[in-house]
């Protein structure tokens, strides 16, 4: 099998990602545990070390799994996304209760203007996360979207979400 991983030049600067993974894992452990005796803490440390080792072997520690560059901008975007989510939820619930006559399902492709894979994934996931639209496929920079009615797709094509995700990137 060919090596399908990110190219080798990435390798030298894996350290920040490893450190961030270590920190997130530690927080995860501490938040979950609730027992702060020496034994449990040291076991936790060993566990984290083991997980880090396995993660490195699996080659899953890189800029894709630890999007460091996005950390600061995510909360603002998420707030906006929550607002969108609530609005679209209301519209879908309306469609459900009003019955099948009000829906007009559409399958179409839209363009994702993000440069990185990570941006595209965030965009696609945001599309799916707002009910009413589901990102069905992602090929190149084309996202196939299924929407429950034409208004939803029109809102997506207006490109508000696209722009916001793009702004996340740089």
């Amino acid at each position, binding site marked *: *099998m060919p090596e*399908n991983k990110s190219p080798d030049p990435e390798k030298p600067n894996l350290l920040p990602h490893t450190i961030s*993974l270590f920190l997130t*894992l530690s927080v*995860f*452990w501490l938040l*979950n*545990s*609730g*027992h702060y005796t020496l034994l*449990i803490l040291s*076991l*936790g440390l060993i*566990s*984290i070390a*083991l*997980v*880090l080792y*396995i*993660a490195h*072997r*699996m080659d*899953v*520690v*890189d800029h*894709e*799994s*630890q999007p460091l560059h996005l950390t600061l901008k995510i909360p603002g975007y998420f707030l906006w996304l929550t607002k969108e989510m609530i609005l679209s939820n209301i519209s879908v619930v309306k469609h459900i209760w009003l019955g099948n006559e009000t829906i007009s399902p559409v399958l179409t492709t839209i363009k994702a203007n993000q440069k990185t*894979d*990570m941006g*595209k*994934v965030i965009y*696609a*996931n945001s599309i799916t996360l707002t009910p009413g639209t589901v*990102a069905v496929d*992602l090929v190149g920079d084309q996202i196939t979207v299924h929407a429950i009615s034409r208004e939803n797709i029109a809102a997506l094509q207006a490109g508000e979400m696209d722009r916001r995700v793009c702004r996340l990137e740089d």
Partner: protein
Amino acid sequence: MRDLFAVVMLSGIFGLLSASFFVAMDAVDVAFTEASVGAGIASLLMLTAVTLTGRSEDSERHRPMWALVVVFITGGLLIYGTLDMPYFGSADAPIHLHVAPRYINDSMQETGLPNIVTSVLASYRGFDTFGEVVVIFTAGIGVLALLRVGRRSGIHRVMADSIFYLMHEQHLILRITTKILIPFILLFALYVQFHGDFGPGGGFQAGVIFAAAIILYAMVFGLPTARRVVNRTFVRLLSAAGVLLYGGVGVVTMLNGGNFLDYNVLAGDPVAGQHLGILLIELGVGCTVAAVMVIIFFNFSGRRDNL
């Protein structure tokens, strides 16, 4: 219902339902196990087997009359038998009167663990659990013996399936999500492993979750990649090492002058000894379960890919 995939899906719902039921019945540890086993691994294994054996069933082969007769007779007899049983939820049923009060009242002093299920599992009934672990190990060996990949099957299937090794290239979203999630699943499994003393959890559950993470990796990144990460020989050794660790603790307790699996003698203080012993054997259980699950899945999956 002749489509076996649909049957598997429905049995997945059944597993989810029974786990909710176990939570409602206070059996949190059992629910935990059912959550990790019944809903995930079981349906995955069945799916693999169905892809290996064909999807539909011949409907002419039913013999419903006979079966119905047998079923109704047996069911009737069983229901007749239940008439003498104690009522549901009654506190003075025979089962609650013998050993259970002792476990509930004394286990805290004797083992120092709040989770009674763990202390009973690992300490009071350590023999049983040892047996169970050996059974799991044997089942793993059995699967290995049955499914270890032979060279004789046709080439065409390899051609048909080979594109799916590259699943992670086609599914960008999946790849990134999996990459983010896997470390957390692994760590969560270890967390479950070491917090089985205090809350629901323990070696069995942790092993299954750990294996589930590796199975997820194998599914998304392809079996060959997963095989490279998780060495086959190492997994086989690990499954044996778990059993050995369990048995070894027993032998050490015997050398220290106690009975087999009597952890009191492991350390100066009996409670500390219990704690250490339980920790070690849970670790053994976890190793064996995780390794066996990985072995089972890899062999099924390897059979499919015919590598």
